């Protein structure tokens, strides 16, 4: 997957979890838990959605890397390239 595809996927799934959030206002470097008050259930739902879309198994210990857009891009880039 290209980085752009990963970004698009991430924002699409984030929109389903937090429809009130404008994707354009997301700071890709900042933890979404601090930025838009995501909680553990939201992060789990995000991990599940990304797993279902990419087939990448994301261990629980790696969830913290899913909490920012840049972190997720780097994580998935390394596993899908």
């Amino acid at each position: 997957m290209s980085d752009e595809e990963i970004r698009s996927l991430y924002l699409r799934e984030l929109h389903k979890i937090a429809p009130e959030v404008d994707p354009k206002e997301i700071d890709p470097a900042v933890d979404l838990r601090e930025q838009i008050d995501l909680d553990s259930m939201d992060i789990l739902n995000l991990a599940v959605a990304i797993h279902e879309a990419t087939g990448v198994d994301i261990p629980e210990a790696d969830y913290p890397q899913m909490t920012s857009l840049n972190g997720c891009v780097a994580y998935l880039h390394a596993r899908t390239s």
Partner: protein
Amino acid sequence: MPSLGADMEVGTVLQWLVKPGDAVKRGDIVAVVDTEKATIEVEIFQTGVIQKIVVPEGEKVPIGTLLAVLTTDGEAAAAAPEAKPKPVAPPAPPRPVPPPVMAKPAPPRPAPAPVAAKPPAPPKTAAPHRMHISPLAMRIALDLKVDLSTVTGTGPDGAITKADVERAAKAPPAPAPAPPVAARAAAPAAAAAKPATAPVDRTATMRKVIAAAMARSKREIPHYYLGNQIDMSKAMSWLTAENLKRPVTERLLYSVMLLKAVALAIHEVPEVNGFWKDGAFVRSEAVHVGVAISIRQGGLIAPAIHDVNQKSLSEIMVNLRDLVKRVRAGTLRSSEIADATITVTSLGEQGVESVFGVIYPPQVALVGFGKIVERPWASGGMVGARPVVMASLSGDHRASDGHRGGLFLAAIERLLQEPEKL
């Protein structure tokens, strides 16, 4: 208009998902209703055919108001209240009404085929014809009086987002709207040109509703509070090992163990599960656990997971995931709002260590959990670091007392020491 809790007095029909002539079965979602706390999907509890829509989209009515007429199997249409006898209900609006603000049933896309007059179709299973828009955006559109048929969605797959609605609300009204497509010709023309008015402050409205319910609770319910620190080392070790065996889609959060432990502990102390009604405690045989879920824009709501005592941890997890997702997306169901027999709230993720909550009337108990923190813990003459959570009970002293409440918390603690049996 169903009552969706002690704190609800009115509701607004946001969207009908059925039309006259549609066949519906028990459990179908037939409408989306906006309350002061949340957007709720209204389920139907009878199987039959929709005879008439009585309350149009966009109208606010008190609870108890007739929303629609349903003819159940074998029932004559003429028997329905206010329903005029009709051989086969044509899909016509029941009466002239102010145009709903979200009347267009599809996102703005090139129309592939002309809209032709449809012959009366035989009753069929209700097929929801939702707009491609989040309930939140829809609710904001209602507040801001934005005609959604004029809004272009910029979200994924053309979905109308909150930002799209807010942008449309700020935009100056179009001087002369283009002639609408044929399907809209029947709608009064005034609809599209409705100017945006002062927005409703959702957070303030929700706070007002919460304030009323909580003030009532504190005024009427003699609360007592108990707290118990619980060693979570066995539960967390079991959970970590269990999640390693599970695919990402089936992993558990520790909160499902807490919910199950609460539900099972109710078997031992049933007087914390039920309602205070007409001066007496009414025990509930069913254990429907309300889960307090915060709404990011402010406020909270506590919809129920049904029959938690009878479900596996995996089933509770599926229910909880679905519930949280729908709370945040604004698509709760009416039964989930009204049915909770006890509430559980966890504020651990906010760093809170102890929670002493306010009971949601007419319930008689609320269980709180704080953050799991490492604490020195003495056991067998040795002191070690253990993950510990503070479990608390807010109890209604009319329905139970501190002794029974203490037994309830002790049962929760005991159950969490054998997580594999949950």
